[in-house]
């Protein structure tokens, strides 16, 4: 069987900016609780964040939402600059962060055009009541370490191991292998899958929308990072009603 290459599709036509993905990611990956002081200090850690842009002026204002997570670029600019190899590319196409190797130079964060890398400025603290909620499959990071979206690599590993041990094939779109954000999206705006499997949903979407006149595009393509996240443009119906 061919090696998997994981990718994601974000359908901006379906995203309504509810941020369920942000919450799900935080619970799944032991992300520290973000306090008000973190927002004031501009040090919020959100492995997936929903950016909201206003378009137009009153009374024709529109909000545009775009969830941005690590794009797991094939030519990731964050990888060559880490002095200790804490950021590297694994053979399933994921850009992986090795927490116990990171010494916190923050060079990778500078080099990321999508600004998806986050630094632990403080030691994370959970109140006793929430300590049982921590996910045992995911490292709890101390201060001084960079972290970012991993496409929930712990779930991918666990599912593949279970499949191998118990002898079943991993289904495309199975909830066990999907990242937490994909599972939590109520409009199915996030789609995750194996791009090396031509039958998977993501491959079919890529084939259809990835063409020149399709809705698919990559963020900041001129950097040449070859991201593995495909965004589908929002279908704008308002143009039909414009008078001029």
């Amino acid at each position, binding site marked *: 069987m061919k090696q998997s290459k994981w990718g994601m599709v974000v359908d901006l036509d379906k995203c309504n900016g509810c941020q369920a993905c942000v919450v799900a990611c935080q619970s799944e990956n032991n992300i520290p609780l973000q306090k008000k002081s973190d927002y004031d200090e501009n040090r919020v850690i959100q492995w997936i964040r929903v950016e909201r842009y206003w378009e137009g002026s009153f009374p024709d204002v529109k909000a545009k939402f775009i969830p941005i997570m690590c794009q797991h670029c094939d030519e990731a*600019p964050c990888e060559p600059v880490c002095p200790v190899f804490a950021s590297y590319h694994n053979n399933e196409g994921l850009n992986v962060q090795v927490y116990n190797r990171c010494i916190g130079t923050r060079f990778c964060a500078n080099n990321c055009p999508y600004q998806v890398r986050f630094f632990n400025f403080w030691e994370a603290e959970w109140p006793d009541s929430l300590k049982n909620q921590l996910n045992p499959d995911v490292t709890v990071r101390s201060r001084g370490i960079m972290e970012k979206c991993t496409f929930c690599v712990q779930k991918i590993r666990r599912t593949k191991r279970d499949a191998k041990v118990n002898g079943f094939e991993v289904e495309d779109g199975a909830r066990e292998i999907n990242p937490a954000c994909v599972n939590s999206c109520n409009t199915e705006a996030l789609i995750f899958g194996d791009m090396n499997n031509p039958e998977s949903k993501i491959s079919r979407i890529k084939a259809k929308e990835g063409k020149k006149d399709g809705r698919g595009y990559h963020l900041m393509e*001129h950097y040449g990072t070859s991201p593995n996240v495909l965004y589908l443009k929002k279908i704008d119906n308002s143009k039909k009603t414009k008078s001029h």
Partner: protein
Amino acid sequence: MKKIKNNLIFTERVIERSLGKVPVNKELINIHNRKRGNTFNLFLYITAFLSVIGVVGIILRIMNGFDDMSAWSYYVTACMFIFTTFMGAPMFSMATKVARGNWRRPISRMSEIFCISGIAGLIFFIPILWVLPSLEDGRKTLWFFDPGKVPAYSPHIWTTLALIGFVLTALTLLWLNARPDFAILRDKSKGKSKIYSFLAHGWVGSTHQWGALRDRVSVLGIFYFMLLLTVLYFFASDFLMALIPGWVDSLYPVTLSHNAIQGGVAILTIAVFIMWKWGGYQNFIGLDQLWGLGKLLFGISLLWFWFFISSLMVLWYGKKPNERDVLQLLMFGKYLPIFIFTFFFVCIVPFFSLTLDSIRKSYYGPPIIAISVLIGNFLDRFRHYGSAYSLDRTIDDATHRFASLPDIVIPNMVDLMVIFGAVSMPLFFILIISKYVPVISLWENREYLLYGSHEKYYKTEVLVEGKPY
């Protein structure tokens, strides 16, 4: 100490002369005034003939039309070659005057004579103004945000102005520095005195005139340097970088200026060698001069590598698609053989050979290495200008990359005529004016008699040099 006596040929003879044995000026004037031999006349006729061929080549190239830019690749290369070799040579005189090395004195006039090549450069430059596309052609400009708001031919205008200023400054510098010599020749010779008295323009050698000379030469020298950098900045940006979409290299104007200085030192080395070997100036040009030029060439070639690596590191590391394309065009793609030869001739050969004492501290070593540097310089110019002018500037919308990369243009007959003309025309002008401008500066070498002397120093003899300022 034997070492002093063998290497400092110049100063020893100076001392002999200062003791009244042979006057400096008389010997220099005699060499300058002697009838030119057959070899000199032969070269004069050859360079004249090739210059005419060059002019014919220019006319033929113009007649072929300005539409096909790739046909002009070799033409632009040849013109830029003039500016990055011949016009870099006077920098030696300016820079060493500031650094106050006395070993420059026999050769500073030779470097100033190269100023006359500016005229040849200007002649070759003028047709290029019609080749370069205007700003309305979708081509970027360095200066203003909105190309629609400036005259479409602005780059052409300001480059021409800068170039004319540059050539005028160069010619003025040559004349100013040679003026005391014209006065000496006017006084010492009969028969030719009409020309020399016209050129000397009332020089009497008063204190005021000497002071004014020093001030004007230093100010104009600074202007020469700034104008060289300015002209090469335009040649690097409007005439080169703007034609390769996606190539943003803030270092390249500086690199081009450095390459010009390297070419200038190289061609000066060859000129000094020729004057030493066949010009009859053995008593004045010594090992010190060629050794000093060899050391300069060594350092400058090392710097070539540094400028090259600075550009390459930034363009290569980030793997941006447009930068990868530019590197493909200039280095790793079809122009790879040219790049390899460039790197070999202009960096590897000078650096590794000039580390050896036997090559650097010799009469024949630096000139031979200088030939290698000039070949490499020409190839470097071709690599940049040839590829830029033959590039199809359309960008593929989907991939944001060049639609196609150009092949290496094969030179045809007209191109060869132009290249030979471009190399010969400056030489022709130099040979002509060398009949009137003394190739070794009379007044500067006489000035040194006042500064340098050999003194007894404990049990040995040392050279003592005055430092008036």
